[in-house]
């Protein structure tokens, strides 16, 4: 059904998107919690900074990543020298670009769910002997699961579709950074590439449909979670 090259692109896309979502999940949740539950100077600024990759054209985000994380950049140079980690032209760079683009979506969904958690339940946990950290782990975190699920799903979908930042930062290298959207773009550049583009687009669609079904199923399995207290 799929050619070997298509399989390869598909697997790479999955790898990049999964890694992007997994590295972003804890970061996004921590940011969401900070913004939802704490007031501190610069809170709105932090919120705005998180939204930046949404507001800027993806190509600009990719360019900023390149300035910062390219081997000539301040962070990228250090990564390169200290850890031998090169992000540009590497699938980890594609994952990073996808993660940055997915971050604002994930933070928003999680924040919405954290804000909906009844603080009186946290109080109850505290009186029962839970320290703040434990109350967070046993009450706030599980009760905000719908937001985590929604955020993960949004982030995964966004990562699957990420194009502009990836091609600018990580380039378009077969086997490393040519994910589905880049392969589709590459196909669109070829005269008569429409058939290949259509095939790849259908793969994208099927993939996201599959992810959606899995995530809905996971959410429904933990339905008890969402029922309201008497």
């Amino acid at each position, binding site marked *: 059904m799929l050619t070997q090259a298509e399989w390869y692109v598909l697997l790479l896309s999955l790898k990049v998107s999964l890694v992007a979502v997994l590295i972003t999940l804890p970061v996004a949740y921590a940011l969401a919690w900070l913004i939802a539950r704490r007031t501190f100077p610069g809170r709105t600024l932090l919120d705005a900074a998180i939204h930046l990759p949404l507001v800027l054209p993806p190509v600009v985000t990719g360019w900023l990543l390149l300035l910062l994380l390219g081997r000539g950049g301040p962070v990228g140079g250090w990564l390169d020298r200290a850890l031998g980690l090169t992000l540009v032209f590497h699938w980890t760079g594609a994952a990073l670009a996808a993660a940055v683009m997915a971050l604002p979506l994930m933070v928003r969904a999680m924040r919405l769910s954290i804000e909906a958690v009844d603080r*009186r*339940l946290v*109080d*109850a*946990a*505290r*009186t*029962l*002997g*839970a*320290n*703040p950290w*434990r109350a967070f782990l*046993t*009450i706030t975190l*599980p*009760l905000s*699961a719908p937001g985590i699920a929604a955020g993960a799903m949004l982030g995964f979908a966004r990562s699957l579709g990420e194009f502009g930042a990836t091609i600018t930062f990580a380039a378009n290298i077969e086997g490393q950074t040519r994910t589905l959207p880049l392969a589709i773009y590459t196909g669109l550049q070829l005269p008569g590439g429409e058939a290949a583009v259509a095939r790849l687009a259908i793969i994208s669609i099927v993939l996201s449909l599959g992810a959606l079904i899995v995530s809905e199923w996971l959410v429904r399995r933990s339905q*008890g*979670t969402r*029922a*309201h*207290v*008497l």
Partner: protein
Amino acid sequence: MSFDLDCVVRPGAAPIIARFASEARLTALVGPSGVGKTSVLNAIAGILAPVEGRIAVAGQVLFDSEAGVNLPPEARGAGYVFQDARLFPHQRVHANLVYGERLARNAGWIGRDEVIELLGVGHLLDRWPATLSGGEARRVAIGRALLAAPRFLLLDEPLSSLDAEKAERLAALIERIRDEIAVPILLVSHAAEEVERLAGQVVTLG
């Protein structure tokens, strides 16, 4: 001194002054609706900070604005039965019951099986809180507080919405805790006969 309070709490605009000391094993806190009983319990439990003053229970200072003492709720050892049940909606009844028991540092003074038996919640252990009736939820909340091995109990109308037989059984349990285990208890109740039966001292707020 079981409860020794001299503090001001301010949940809304109006300050509530709580100034009483009680030697009794069970102290009843009474007063008209809205006078501030729940707020006082919240202050003792550590989930509502007083504006100023001092709170000591069973000889331990929990809060003292002058001395800069303010123990976090988890260090106070309150067994708080809230006016609303506040069960954790994402945990089944069994997990709710043992939530505090798992965290308790010292051994509890009442066993899990005994609590389940006395409160008659054995058939509910696998249920989600949202499916419980009013009285069932209240009983689970009581059990959850008792199992946390608390050093003192704060009971906000624990017997309301229980039928006569279950209320009687629970009153007997409270008596037993009061007499045998000697845990200081602060009870909010609107039922005169309940107060009469259980309380060694009655504090009227407002």
